[in-house]
C-alpha cells in the first residue's frame, strides 16, 4: 500500500511511475512526482520502481518559472 496525494493506493512489487500513472483515471500530464520527499522526473518514470509504503504527490507543474 502507498499513499497518493494523501489517500491510500494499492501497490505492486516492481511498479514503475509510468505504470502508476497509467492506472490513474482521466487525462493527466504529470512531468514530476514526489516520492518520499524526493522528486522523480519524467525521464526516469519508466525505470523508477516505487517502494512499498511510499508517500507520493503528483506535481502539477505546468507553467512555472
Amino acid at each position, binding site marked *: 500500500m502507498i499513499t497518493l*496525494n*494523501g489517500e491510500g493506493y494499492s501497490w505492486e512489487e516492481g511498479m514503475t511511475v509510468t505504470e502508476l500513472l497509467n492506472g490513474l483515471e*482521466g*487525462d*493527466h*500530464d504529470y*512531468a*514530476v512526482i514526489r516520492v518520499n*520527499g*524526493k*522528486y522523480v*522526473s*519524467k*525521464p*526516469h518514470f519508466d525505470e523508477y520502481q516505487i517502494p512499498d509504503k511510499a508517500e507520493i*504527490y503528483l*506535481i*502539477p*507543474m*505546468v*507553467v*512555472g*518559472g
Partner: protein
Amino acid sequence: MTEFNLKELKALNYERPEIERGYANQTLYVNIGEPDIAVKPVTEQMKEIFIGGKGFDLWLLWQAVTPSTRWNDPENTVCIASGPMGGTPSYPGSGKSIVAAISPATGSVMDSNVGGYFGPYLKFSGFDALEIQGKSDQDVVVLVDGVDQCIKVFAATGLPEDAYALSETLTDQFADGNPRGISVVSTGQGAVHTVMGCLNFTWFDSKRKRVRYKQAGRGGLGTVFADKGIKAIVARWGSVSLDSNKPADKETLRSVGKAYSKEIVGLDPKQNQMSKVGTTHLVPIMNDFDLLPTHNFKFGQHPHAGLIGKDVYKDIFDPGFDGCWMGCTVACSHGVKDFVPLTGDYAGQKVFVDGPEYETIAGCGSNLGVFDPYFIVEMNFYCDAYGLDTIAVGTGIAFVMECFEMGLINESHTNGLDLNFGNRLGALTLVHQMARGEGFGKIVGQGIRGMKKVFAEAFGADPVVMQDIGMESKGLEFSEYMTKESLAQQGGYGMALKGPQHDEAWLIFLDMVHNYMPSFEEKAEALHWFPNFRTWFSLCGLCKLPWNDIVPADNQEEKEPAKVMKHIRWYAQYFAAVTGRKVAPEDLITMSEAVYNFQRIFNLRLGFGRREHDTIPYRAMGPVTVEEYESRQERYDGQLKEKYKVDIEGRSSEEKVGLLRQFREEQYVKLQDAVYHRRGWSNDGVPTPETAKRLKIDFPEVLEVLEASG
C-alpha cells in the same frame, strides 16, 4: 552606530488623499537636481488604459524623456509604482512594486517587479507612483512620510556604503518606534561601478526583528539610481488592513482572498512546498530535464546538482514565515541565518542572507561549474550588499570563465586571476573587484556586451565566437534556463520587450516536455497570451507566483490547463472587487496588451524594438561546439535524420554542428514571423497603427513614432 548626517534640502507638506478603489489618484514627482517636489493628478484615461504599476511607470517615463535621452542623462527618471490591488493584505502576492527607467545595459526601457513593502506604503501615503528625476552632486535621501504627510529631500553624509547596513540605519532613523512601518529602497557601491546595479527593497520582519530584502535586479536600475546620487528612498506608513485600498466590494474581496489563501495553504505542502524551500525546488527538476544551465549554458545537467537543490537548502534556510508582503501564504522568500562569509568586509562575521532563490543558485552556482551551497550563499550576500544583480553577475562570470577556458582571454588580462570553471575564490574575488571598480572586475562589471567589445578590441579575442557564447540579448544577460530544446522559449527570451528575462514567458515545459504547441501558430499564440497575462500582474502591483506555482487540484479538467483558468477567474473578481470595474477574464489580456504594445513602441522611440533587436546568441538555440554536440549526440543526430531528413552518414561532428545550426536558425526566423503576425505587428516587429488604435494607445506622439518606424 554609524555616524551620519541628514541635512534637509527641501520639504513639502501635503494633505494625504483618501484612497479610492485602489487608487490614490495622484503621483509624486521629485527632482533631486533642483531640488523640486510636485504632486501630479492621475487622470481617468491613465487608469483606463495604463491601469497602474508598470503602466503608470511607462506613461510617466514617456513624458519625462525624449528619443535622445540616455540612461545617465538627468532627465532619465526612476519610476516606482504599486498598482490598484497593491497593498491588499489578504490576497496572496499583493505587495509588489514595479520599477522602470532607461537602462544602462540595454539603452532602452527596463522594468522590474519586486517585493518588500515600498510600493504599498507609497500608495497609502498618497501616491500611485513616484518619479525621481535629475542628478545630484551630493548623496541624497528622499523621505515619503505618509504618517506626517510630508516629503523631504536630505543631503546625506556618512551613511554606510553597503545596502544591508544602509537600510538598517535608515529604518532605525525613521521608524519612530514602528520599524514595520518603514520600507527603504537603496543600492550599493557595485551600482556605482557596473551596469548591473540592482535595487534592494526592504520590509521589516517583525518575528526576526530585522530588515529583510528583495531585489529589483534586472537591467541596471540600481546603476541609474546611483548615478543620480540617490542614496536611498524611504517610505513611512502606519497600519494596513483590507480597508486600506477602500475596495469597491469588500465582501467579495474578503471571500475571494480567503479562498485563494486557503487553497495555497492546502496545496503548497502537496505540490512544490515553496513555503519551506522557496524556488529551490526548481534545481533538481531543471537538472532532470537537462534545463539547468551549467558551464555558461553549455549543458543542462550535472551529476552534482543535488548538492545545490531543495534538499540541501531546506536545511540551510532559517525556518519561519517568509512572505515578502503581509499575508502572502506562499511565503517563499527564505533566508539563511548566522551565515559567516569567508571573504570581503564581512569575513568571519555572522550575517543574515536573504536568499538564495533558483536564479541565484543556477547563475552563481551551476553556471559557474560550482556545486557548493555555501559559496552560492556568499555570492548572494555580497551581490545584495553591493547592489549587484545576481543573474547578470552569474551569467557574466560564466561567460568570462568560458572565454578563459577557451584561451580567448588569459591571466595577463585578468591580472593573474585563474578563472576556470569551478574556481570559487576567483569568482568571489571578481565580485569584490566589480563592486570597487577595480582590476579585471571593472571590465566584467560592464556586462557581456561591454566585455565582448573590450575582449575583442583590447585582448584580440575572436568576436564571432564571443557572439555565439555570450549569453546576452539586447544587452541584458539571460536568466537561468536552457532553451536549446524549446523553440518557444527561445522566442520567449528573444522577443521579450526588455531582454532575456523569463518573467514574460516561461514556456519550456509546455513546449518541450508536454509538446502542447507543436506548430508555429500555436507557439505564436502562446507568445502572445503568456507575455500579456504575465504583464498584467505588474500593472496591478501583484506577484505572479501564486497564479501558477500552486495549481488547483482539478486544473487538469479545465479546457486550457496551462492557463490555470480558475485562478484567472479569481483575479478578474479580485480586480473588480477593488476597482469597481467589472471585467471578464479575457479583459485582463486586453488591458495588458495596451501596455505591452506601448512598451514596444517606447523601445522604437528610443531606437530599438525591431526584428534586428530580437536576436539571440546561438548558444541559446543549439550546440555551438563539437563538445556540446557530442555530449548529446544521440539527440542531435536523431533530429538531423528524423526531423530534417539529412543523411548524416560519414559526416564529421563539425559538419553536423553547422547543419543543425542552419535548421535551428531558420526555425527561429519562422517563429518571429508567426509571433509578429499574431501580435498585430509588421514583419519588422513594429506594432501597426491599427493595433495601436484597437488598444486605444493611438496618441498623436505614438502614431508619430509608428509613422517614423515605417
